[in-house]
């Protein structure tokens, strides 16, 4: 389907105090159920990757409000976990608990935290550590945020991006905080700007309206994955909760094959 076979379509899950929620601008809007069953369903749909963010973690100061054992039992696809990860121990326990990769957001907010992120990369390797950065437009320039889009970063975005690449982030997860949960389509101006700022591998999410939006990102240089939450978790004009990996190429192809064989 795409000329870049390793491009991944990622399902994003937000967890608030153990409950799976749909967010708009990072604010919980709708209860979607138990995160573990969502992970199981998405795994069975042969989802490329799951990124689970515990959005309540930094607010409550307790990491991992969800049941880690259950999530690990449920998940059968690559899993990245984010949320109030600040120490080497946090990373270790998440990896031991079944996460392939660990995302770090709030920690990147200051120089001391950036150093610690570097130490995590040294300990667990590039392939484990993901730097997660939230971005918003202000006038005509992009501003970096941490703490789930609530705290503005003191450095310019371009500088922060190159800093985390230097520190060895395996990938940079970039979240369009403005369009989060809005389903009005990706901000292509933002995608252009990000591609110009850094060539490091990036995961982009925030605002996907359809799977086509996600696949269109594959055509751009420097993006290794694109993610979405709403289109995989609600359906129809009433936004009825329904977890699925909607019309991804694999499933679409399978259905076409079936249609031909009938």
């Amino acid at each position, binding site marked *: 389907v795409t000329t870049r076979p390793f491009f991944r379509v990622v399902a994003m899950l937000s967890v608030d105090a*153990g*409950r799976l929620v749909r967010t708009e601008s990072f604010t919980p809007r709708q*209860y*979607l*159920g*138990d995160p*573990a*069953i969502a992970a*199981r*369903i*998405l795994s*069975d*749909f042969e989802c490329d990757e799951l990124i689970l963010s515990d959005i309540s973690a930094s607010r409550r100061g307790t990491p991992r409000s969800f*049941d880690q*054992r*259950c999530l*690990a*039992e*449920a998940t059968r696809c690559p899993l990245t976990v984010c949320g109030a990860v600040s120490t080497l121990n946090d990373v270790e326990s998440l990896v031991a608990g079944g996460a392939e990769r660990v995302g770090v957001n709030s920690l990147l907010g200051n120089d001391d935290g950036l150093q610690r992120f570097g130490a995590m990369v040294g300990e667990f390797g590039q392939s484990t550590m993901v730097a997660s950065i939230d971005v918003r437009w202000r006038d005509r320039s992009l501003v970096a945020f941490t703490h789930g889009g609530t705290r503005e970063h003191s450095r310019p975005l371009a500088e922060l991006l190159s800093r985390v690449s230097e520190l060895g982030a395996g990938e940079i997860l970039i979240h369009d905080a403005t369009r989060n949960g809005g389903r009005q389509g990706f901000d292509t101006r933002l995608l252009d700007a990000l591609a110009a700022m850094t060539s490091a591998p990036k995961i982009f999410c925030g605002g996907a309206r359809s799977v086509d939006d996600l696949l269109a990102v594959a055509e751009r240089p420097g993006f290794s994955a694109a993610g979405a939450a709403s289109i995989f978790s609600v*359906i*129809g*004009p*009433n936004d*009825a*909760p*329904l*977890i*699925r990996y*909607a019309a991804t190429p694999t*499933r679409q192809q399978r*259905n076409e094959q*079936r*249609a031909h064989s*009938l």
Partner: protein
Amino acid sequence: VRTPSDRIRELDTRHRPITRQCRRCVLDSTVPDLELVDGICQYCRTWGTHVGHTIDTDPARLKDKIDALKAGGKGRQFDCLMGLSGGVDSSYVLMKCVEFGLRPLVIHVDNGWNTAESNHNIAALVEQLNVPLITKVLEWDMFSDMQLSMLRASTPDGEVPTDHAIYATMLSEVRAHKIGAIVSGGNYATESVLPADWGYGASDWRYIRSVHQLFGTAPTDQFPHYGLDELAKARFNGPPTVRLLNFLDYDRQQAIDELVANVGWEDYGGKHCESSYTRFFQTVLLPHKFAIDKRRAHLSSQILAGAVTRDEALHELEAPTFDDRWFDTELPFIMAKLRITPDQFWDIVDRPPKSFRDYPNQEKNVQRIQAVRYFPAKVKTRLRSLRSR
């Protein structure tokens, strides 16, 4: 080595030997109140005489039903409310309703045990048929506590909290959207035989609540429920439930083929296995702990409807109810999801079976409501059968 599946199958010895068997269907002495007369059980003898439980494939009758639903929906946003689980029955009746030009509101109750298959099928139907869907997601911490308390109560009613929540949700949606009727996938072709002692309680909130008070901890105020008064109101003055499949020549396999061809539905085999809890409950716990093999009821229904022969049914029953791989692929997840240890799981399995009668309940009153409500129809059916004799 004694494997987990040995441990499950050893439970069968509690219920052996099978002493009696109906000559016409495949019910046997695992049905505690089986009454054989000339070797024929009461379910076979009374088949086709239950109120509203008939198959009538006269196209005129179907048209009457559809027209009545349309007339009832005049001036309203929807003609009927329909529950959708993603299983064959509810999927097929929805597809048919849209084909007949009805305007349903579709409701899915998510009890936390959905599967990729169920969700794929719900999405396929909703998108292909372009029908409005609403989902009621039960709070998982609360609902899992209800479900676990029912398992600890050791009665064969592990699906009762789900069934109760579904009907409670439907009643409140009917009220909220001023809908005149419920169209259900319930059908006489595959569900006419259901032994009375095989399960109880879907309408008995006192039973569900008292079991939860004994074995649960989480608050239940968010649990969708209805008491006796609301049950009576629904039965006497509420929306009628129309079992539309009883007016079609409902054949399960043909229904699956149509669904696959028309909406890209997926078949995953096994009745009611659109949920991993249902699969656990109906294929592992019920048949071995309680000697309730639901396949016997479904196959008996199909024998009486003429869809399968008794020999075919007996052959099908020789297959094990579950696949041994289930212990590796599903059980660890189920235990993790219910937050129980293997010891707690085996404790649930090994507890001696109990009945709802061991707990506070309001069976008498639930029965009274049903009896009074269906008395006139019962008389009518009786008169009709006397006349035709």
